[in-house]
């Protein structure tokens, strides 16, 4: 593993954060959306015992699947191939894009219509296609809006959550030919429907993500409401599905509990409009469906998370987004500030494996460790524990032989290390502690009024005039 330590990684993370915090419109959009999604989720779980049991079951299924991951992937591959679905493996985003491009060039594709796929965002699929002259068009309404605006999704489930309907109305009036300004949501959706219907009919390739892969049957499961996912996987003659290697489960019966947890946790629905199970390309005699179905399995750092027993839990994720919907940090800074494909608590713990800890560790520190994320996580990922672990990894000795993460040690500084080593000495030796606290309390007038980041929005810290020890001594009879 290469170890390029950057001194000021993600320098603009704080700038982005500050700019959102100072934007009342953005703050209002996110606060409103988070309150709405929290209430919707809460209403789906009226029975706390059922919720507890189902989360336990969901977590057990994900842990079991990960514990058997290499075996399940091989079984999945064998079954998919037997079903006529072609399986490709990619270690990096470049490899994944090259595979997709190879398919596109072989079938002489000019356009790709896309269903919602965060993995395609992760590999910058649209960019790679466009660089080779192939149009890549988003068809999920939120993704379509974001693409039209030249932006990236700010939420993994609701990509355009940062936009008001007024902003979308302006965007459509400006970018969609023949459309005049309307704030009517139904009318706006019908505009998107009309534009994209032609694209579904004309596209050469449909690209989708995958929510669950079933090893025993060789099935790709897709969860959605809009019908665009079904369009992308049914109308074009080639369907390419792309997903992370962690999304496999062994048995079909493992799907219902995870599906229930996903729909209820993500958008507070008992069930989504569509649950789409794809097991084969078009068979002889069938009149529609793609002639070719491909699955691209992406690593992109997931095997690094897998190698460590604690960090492996990161891969239990079913991408519901409940952790971000309940995160006090995400609610205030929104998705774009993170600067990563996956924002919020899950983004903070998965991104270091994809991009290196050196360029992502500030995300692990941008947390109050309040625990709301792990409380709502449908598969019980201990996110705060993993955040603390990543903070420690970021401070680890850069030269340590057993570094488990690419870019670990990036946050380590001489001054910081010195301060903590003095602190450790003082707090582990009684005499030294007494001496130090005596000097602190008596010399409190010397406390600096400028205390770095602390005093930017708080009053300075000044030691008490008398130590606890002194106060207790007074009480002794």
């Amino acid at each position, binding site marked *: 593993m290469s170890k390029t330590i950057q001194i000021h990684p993600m320098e603009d993370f704080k700038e982005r954060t500050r700019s959102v915090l100072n934007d009342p419109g953005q703050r209002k959009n996110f606060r409103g959306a988070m309150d709405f999604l929290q209430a919707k989720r809460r209403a789906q779980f009226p029975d706390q015992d059922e919720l507890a049991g*189902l989360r336990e079951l969901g977590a057990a299924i994900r842990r079991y699947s990960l514990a058997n991951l290499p075996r399940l992937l091989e079984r999945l591959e064998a079954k998919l191939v037997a079903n006529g679905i072609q399986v490709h493996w990619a270690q990096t985003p470049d*490899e994944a894009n090259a595979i997709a491009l190879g398919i596109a060039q072989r079938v002489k594709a000019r356009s790709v219509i896309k269903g919602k796929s965060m993995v395609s965002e992760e590999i910058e699929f649209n960019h790679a296609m466009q660089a080779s002259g192939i149009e890549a068009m988003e068809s999920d309404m939120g993704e379509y809006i974001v693409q039209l605006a030249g932006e990236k999704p700010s939420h993994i489930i609701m*990509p355009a959550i940062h936009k008001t309907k007024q902003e979308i109305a302006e965007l459509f009036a400006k970018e969609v030919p023949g459309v005049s300004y309307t704030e009517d949501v139904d009318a706006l959706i019908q505009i998107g429907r009309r534009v994209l219907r032609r694209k579904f009919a004309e596209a050469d390739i449909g690209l989708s993500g995958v929510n669950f892969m079933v090893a025993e049957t060789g099935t790709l499961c897709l969860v959605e409401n809009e019908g665009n996912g079904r369009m992308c996987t049914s109308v074009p003659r080639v369907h390419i599905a792309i997903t992370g290697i962690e999304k496999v489960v062994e048995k079909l019966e493992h799907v219902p509990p995870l599906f229930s947890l996903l729909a209820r946790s993500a958008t507070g629905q008992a069930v989504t409009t569509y649950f789409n199970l794809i097991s084969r390309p078009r068979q002889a005699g069938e009149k529609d*469906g793609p002639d070719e179905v491909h699955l691209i399995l992406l690593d992109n750092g997931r095997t690094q998370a897998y*190698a460590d027993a604690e960090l492996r839990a990161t891969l239990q994720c079913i991408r519901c987004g409940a952790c971000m919907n309940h995160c006090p940090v995400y609610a205030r800074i929104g998705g774009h500030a993170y600067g990563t494909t996956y924002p919020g608590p899950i983004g903070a713990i998965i991104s270091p494996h994809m991009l290196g800890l050196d360029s992502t560790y500030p995300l692990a520190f941008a947390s109050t460790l309040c625990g709301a994320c792990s409380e709502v996580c449908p598969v019980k990922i201990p996110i705060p524990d993993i955040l603390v672990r990543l903070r420690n990894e970021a401070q680890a000795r850069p030269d340590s032989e057993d570094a488990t993460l690419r870019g670990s040690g990036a946050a380590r500084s001489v001054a910081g290390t010195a301060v903590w080593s003095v602190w450790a000495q003082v707090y582990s030796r009684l005499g030294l502690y007494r001496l130090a606290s005596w000097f602190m309390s008596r010399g409190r007038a010397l406390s600096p009024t400028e205390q770095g980041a602390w005093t930017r929005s708080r009053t300075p810290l000044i030691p008490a005039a008398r130590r606890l020890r002194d106060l207790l001594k007074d009480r002794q009879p």
Partner: protein
Amino acid sequence: MSAAPGRPKQARVPAGGSAVREATSVGVVAARDSILQRLRNASVGAPAPLPDVSGWYTARRRHEDTAQRVTRLRSALEAVKTEVHDCSRADWAQALLRLAVAKGLRNLLIGTNTPHGAELEALAPPDLELVRYREPIESWRDTLFDQIDASLTLARSAIAEIGSLILWPDASEPRLMSLVPSVHFVLLDVETIHSDFHAAMTAEAWSSGLPSNALLICGPSKTADIQQTTAYGAHGPRELVVLLRHAQGERA
């Protein structure tokens, strides 16, 4: 992460033919083996027990009759703007035609070689053109997208708990029938309704054989991507109409 050996950016360059296919398959093998090897190298500790999914569902399953399942299914469907109508084996086709006329539909897409399609055709409705899905989609894609108002398919079964209809599209009732037309009629025999998703896949032995594409459908297509406001008729049907077909004399 280092790039896989021989994983070619050059795969972008050569277009067409076996060169690309070959380059891809070599890269895939290398990537596949490295990924699997890295996963195998990790120590996963004691084998985790297989989760008891059946136990969870069996313990919570309601013991209910068909009428109770119909009630649950109906309320879940109606909650997402689905029209639900009761009918019998004798009168469902007439009921469908009345609804079609009321909605001002010009035509209705039906499957090939289905008993319900034949029943409709036997009525030779004067106000509604019946269109059969005879040819592969390539030969009439634009017609399907632009000219067809509605479709009728039979549901294989349904799930009371989550209000979902189960469809297994096949050569006679292809998958786009339930997706492209604006109005989708579904005929459902009430005795096929299962209690929950797990019960459905277990009773129908899905794990021993699934079709190319299987579907759960609950409501017309929808989205809440603009300011969390639900709008129906996103990319799929704008209306979902369910005809609950009761056996004679059991009509709710």
